[in-house]
């Protein structure tokens, strides 16, 4: 087991595309580290550079104490799980699992023992004699996971392993992966574009955008205080409401008069945007205390909650999360008020967190 150190990684393809601009990561030993970002943000390229499947243009990668820049993938002692499973189509499950061990040249008895162990861990018993095309997507991915852990590598690299599974299966596998990683204590780097997956799996999350790291933090840190407007818009479903505000008589005020508790040390000379989570707002009867007038545009009835989209002084897209018992009709005049603590505030021009 080992930590992974990525410093000043830069990857530029021969055709001129810059896939990774500048990435620094310090992944701790035994950590489940998630790289999250939209497609094309450089997360997969970074992972493939760590695996040795891509050679970075500049920058260093260390696994444990070893500088692995020039090591071929096989010598890095890592295992990878792919989005398309990549099980060898002509081999039965048993042989797919044994394959990397045989390639290493382990004695037969040990190969068998390790395959049995991995099969037990991933509950593959009945599938051992089937070929990949006779397995469902979920089964294939379990085999792929087993093939990764049969090697007992120093680190697991996961490249969107659940993207091709349907929603229900995805949730199950998520639990399974998290449990497995906790059990084995092996460092795991997990790439995904799904923020729910990132939040529920990661010990820490790195949010990447345009080949750069926007923020690294625990799921809660990332949720509560996104480091940039990009992170604010990316994390959370529905995402934060980004409301332009001014500082006036000790309060943050939007143009429509919505008052927010200001964080300390606000710079006064810049245009500011406050990031307000939908659950930090409340839809009230019109004219309620501290509320500003608003109008319901639409309501999404999700069963356990209702997401109201309200129109507040031309801001048509303010989203508010309310319990299912609070009901307002579409187009109804309502009040809108802030109930949470001081929201994170961003500079409009730099798009970064200022307070």
């Amino acid at each position: 087991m080992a930590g992974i150190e990525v410093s000043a990684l830069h990857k530029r393809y021969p055709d001129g595309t810059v896939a990774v601009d500048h990435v620094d990561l310090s992944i701790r030993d035994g950590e489940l580290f998630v790289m999250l970002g939209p497609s094309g943000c450089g997360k997969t390229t970074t992972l493939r550079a760590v695996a040795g499947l891509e050679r970075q243009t500049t920058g260093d990668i260390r696994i444990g104490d070893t500088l692995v820049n020039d090591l071929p993938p096989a010598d890095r002692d890592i295992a990878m799980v792919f989005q398309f499973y990549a099980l060898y189509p002509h081999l039965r499950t048993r042989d797919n699992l044994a394959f990397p061990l045989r390639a290493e040249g382990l004695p037969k008895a040990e190969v068998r023992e390790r395959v049995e162990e991995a099969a037990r861990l991933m509950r593959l018993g009945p599938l051992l004699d089937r070929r990949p095309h006779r397995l469902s997507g979920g089964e294939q991915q379990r085999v792929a996971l087993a093939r990764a852990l049969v090697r007992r590598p120093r680190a697991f690299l996961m490249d969107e392993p659940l993207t091709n599974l349907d929603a229900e299966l995805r949730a199950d596998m998520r639990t399974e992966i998290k449990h497995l990683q906790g059990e084995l204590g092996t460092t795991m780097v997990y790439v995904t574009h799904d923020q729910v997956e990132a939040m529920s799996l990661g010990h820490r999350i790195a949010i990447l955008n345009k080949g750069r790291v926007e923020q690294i933090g625990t799921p809660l840190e990332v949720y509560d205080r996104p480091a940039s407007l990009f992170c604010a818009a990316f994390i959370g479903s529905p995402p934060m409401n980004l409301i332009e505000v001014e500082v006036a008589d000790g309060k943050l005020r939007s143009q429509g008069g919505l008052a927010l508790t200001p964080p300390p040390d606000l710079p006064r000379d810049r245009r500011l945007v406050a990031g307000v989570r939908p659950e930090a707002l409340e839809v009230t009867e019109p004219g309620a205390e501290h509320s500003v007038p608003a109008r319901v545009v639409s309501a999404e009835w999700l069963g356990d909650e209702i997401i109201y989209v309200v129109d507040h002084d031309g801001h048509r897209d303010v989203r508010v999360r309310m319990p299912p018992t609070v009901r307002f009709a579409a187009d109804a005049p309502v009040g809108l008020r802030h109930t949470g603590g001081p929201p994170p505030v961003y500079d409009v021009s730099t798009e970064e967190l200022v307070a």
Partner: protein
Amino acid sequence: MALSVDEAVSTGPARDHAPPSRRFGGRGRAVLEVALLTVLAVVMLFPVLWMIETSIKENRDVYAIPAKFFDFKVTMEHFKDVFVASGGGRSTLSASFLNSVLVAGVSTALATVLGVPAAWAYSRFSVKAKKDQLFFILSTRFMPPVVVVIPIFLMYRQVGLIDTKLGLILIYTAFNVPFTIWMMKGFVDEVPAEYEDAAMLDGYTRLQAFWRFTLPLLLPGIAATAVFALIFSWNEFVFAIFLTSSDDVRTAPPAIAGLIGGTTVDWGLVAAASVVFALPVLVFAYLVRKHLVAGVTLGAVRR
């Protein structure tokens, strides 16, 4: 997902589900269709039928007026003449057939050996100006061969490749490589790169990964591509007639054409030689017919 070529071809015939038009009743329309298709088939297949008939007729039936369609005596003399010279020993035609086999086989093998790795590289790696390179490769096939035959002839004369089998092999390979690259790139694109990635993590080099995992999955595609290349080299006439002159180099197409044009034409021999010449391609095409369709319709089916 791994997609074998067989899956890429729809198993059933594509049917038109549009309701039969009201003016043409379903039945009347079907009859008309069959009638038209029959006429078309007769027109298309008649030369082939006539070739086969002529090849097994005795000479006096070949020249009979009115032509005999059914009541003629079957003879295999012409086929014997294709392979055996009149004085005994091997005929020049049989030498031409051997030349054709050699030239078409070697040029196809060369084109495959050169084209498949190139297609793999274009599919897998990020190459500078990849699209422009691929377009350039394709563009070499834009012009008809006749256009370049004179310059090629002059160049070949300079380097001593005129009237050699090597010369034909090289020119056919040059024509087949671009085609092989383009057709194979489609097949390689369909094989997920993850197989190679996984194999590399398991301890293989990139080339080993290609050889052991990607290549076996490409075999149907390679077969289809090779058959196309083979058919091209086998049928090629223009270069063969311009670049060769002696009987021991000449391939079958110019050799068969050479049978016509003396004072008398032995049509039975011409027909028999043509049948022998057409057979291998028909057999090959039949064997790989599924893959041929897959090759032609590639890209129409998304995974």
